[in-house]
């Protein structure tokens, strides 16, 4: 009793831990949903409305305002729809495993939306930082330091031209022989003026070039240092890192989006595992509570953990024989009313009158056809019990004796030899060539037979099916039907069928 109580306490504690773990996971999933909604909202905003700074254009008249409101409603609804679908898909993955197409679509689109909006945000952020950068603003201001004209040169030219004009007047009057000296002086001064102007223009061009380069540099520097580093890496030794800034932004936001999606997907997986663990523990606790105290002191001790399946237990379990008469049922089977004429519990093998026993009880171990199995949310298939399997009372608790009126039907030899189950069907399929006795074909063979027949969906957990395939192989090897290939190499046959 103490051991059982301790076991129950441990299981209860585990159940509480699993539940709190599950609650935390669900909370994180909800947070992920909210975050996804906001990211999609941002994405749609960038896609349909543009940057918020430009929205003032929509408020000019009623028509623009109406268009803006309409677009906003689309943006919100679309973000809600997309994030909700993604949330639903992730919960679905947790329960039923991933569907490749949906995973690709959901995650692919989420990634695109996330890095689309994030990269646009990086640009906006860089622009805002740039606008606040005083160094950059100073480069935009008009340069007032235009060089003043050389006043000395101008007055010299004017004076030289005046002298030349006087000289020419005197030349006409015959008072001068020539004016060549004055003319040469004017020409020289004009040449000087042209040279000075040219030098000034070149200096201005050079100054503008430096100013633009400085602006580009400041623009580039407004990005995050990680982005700058990645851009420098992408540019290599020779390239200009400023040309790779956009590429770096895309890569970094893509990386962030991938990480977010991986974690989000992980949450959905943990949710599925937690739910299954909780359900498993609840079932185990229920079983444990219903299980009678039956720890035998003999060396061989039968534990009636499972429902007896229709054959009388051997006499080596006297403690079990004295256990309560409450029937232990099939998994998921509801308790049936005990039959009025239930035989009193007696110790030993006394055969009751044949009339009290129905033939149905003779072979309760015969399970229903596997086609009646239904997929469950926890990916276990549960048998749909036929009438013949609905036990009216416990059949094998060590008390019932002579359950069958005919001695031949009393279980003295195993009723099943594995041929009635899925394993037997698999053996037949292998022998008939319908299924190859190797990993992938067997996996597919099992998967086809246990998936939900109504939808044809591949809802069974892949790992679980792999474990089934391994269990089949283990039994086949134990029975000498197959062996592990001693010369196995990658790509070759891992197992050899030797039957």
């Amino acid at each position, binding site marked *: 009793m103490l051991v059982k109580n301790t076991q129950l306490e441990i299981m209860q504690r585990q159940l509480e831990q699993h539940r709190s773990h599950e609650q935390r996971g669900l909370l994180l999933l909800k947070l992920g949903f909210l975050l996804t909604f906001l990211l999609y909202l941002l994405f749609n905003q960038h896609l349909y409305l543009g940057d918020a700074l430009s929205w003032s254009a929509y408020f000019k008249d009623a028509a623009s305002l109406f268009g803006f409101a309409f677009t906003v409603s689309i943006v919100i609804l679309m973000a809600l729809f997309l994030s909700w679908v993604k949330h639903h898909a992730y919960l679905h993955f947790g329960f039923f495993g991933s569907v490749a197409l949906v995973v690709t679509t959901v995650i692919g689109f989420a990634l695109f939306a996330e890095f689309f909006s994030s990269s646009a945000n990086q640009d906006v952020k860089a622009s805002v930082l740039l606008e606040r950068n005083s160094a950059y603003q100073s480069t935009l201001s008009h340069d007032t330091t235009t060089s003043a004209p050389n006043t000395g040169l101008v007055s010299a030219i004017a004076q030289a031209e005046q002298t030349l004009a006087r000289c020419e007047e005197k030349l006409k009057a015959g008072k001068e022989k020539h004016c060549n000296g004055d003319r040469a002086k004017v020409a020289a001064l004009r040449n000087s003026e042209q040279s000075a102007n040219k030098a000034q223009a070149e200096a201005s061009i050079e100054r503008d070039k430096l100013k633009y380069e400085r602006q580009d540099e400041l623009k580039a520097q407004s990005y995050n240092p990680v982005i700058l580093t990645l851009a420098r890496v992408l540019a290599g030794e020779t390239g200009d890192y400023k040309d790779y800034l956009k590429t770096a932004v895309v890569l970094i936001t893509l990386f962030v989006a991938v990480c977010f999606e991986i974690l989000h997907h992980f949450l959905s997986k943990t949710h599925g595992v937690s739910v299954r663990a909780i359900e498993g523990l609840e079932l185990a606790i229920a079983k444990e509570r219903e299980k009678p105290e039956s720890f035998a002191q003999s060396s061989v001790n039968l534990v009636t953990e*499972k429902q007896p399946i229709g054959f009388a237990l051997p006499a080596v379990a006297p403690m079990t024989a004295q256990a309560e008469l409450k029937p232990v049922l099939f998994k998921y089977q509801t308790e049936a009313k005990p039959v009025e004429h239930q035989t009193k519990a007696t110790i030993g093998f006394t055969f009751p009158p044949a009339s009290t026993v129905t033939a149905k009880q003779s072979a309760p171990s015969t399970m229903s056809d596997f086609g009646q*199995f239904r997929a469950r949310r926890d990916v276990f298939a549960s048998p749909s019990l036929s009438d013949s399997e609905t036990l009216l009372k416990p059949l094998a608790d060590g008390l019932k004796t002579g359950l069958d009126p005919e001695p031949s039907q009393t279980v003295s030899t195993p*009723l099943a030899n594995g041929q009635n189950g899925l394993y037997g069907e698999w053996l037949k399929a292998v022998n008939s060539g319908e299924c190859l006795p190797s990993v992938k074909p067997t996996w597919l063979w099992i998967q086809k037979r246990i998936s939900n027949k109504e939808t044809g969906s591949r809802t069974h957990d892949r790992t679980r099916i792999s474990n089934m395939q391994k269990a089949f192989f283990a039994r086949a090897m134990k029975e000498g039907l197959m062996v592990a290939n001693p010369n196995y190499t990658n790509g070759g046959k891992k197992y050899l069928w030797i039957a």
Partner: protein
Amino acid sequence: MDSLSTALGTQSIYYWLDGYWITDKEEAELMDSINAFGSLHQVVELPMNADIETEIKRLLS
């Protein structure tokens, strides 16, 4: 169950009516969930040094 068995110096054997047995509880439940062997498994506690085949045959005989 397994830790309890170990503490008691015994082991849990999960067996089916056709005589096939294993020691892994999860595998046994997995096999039952798809009706792999035509019956539901039973559990027996055996000493560590017991001849499992013989004991199972005896139980089923």
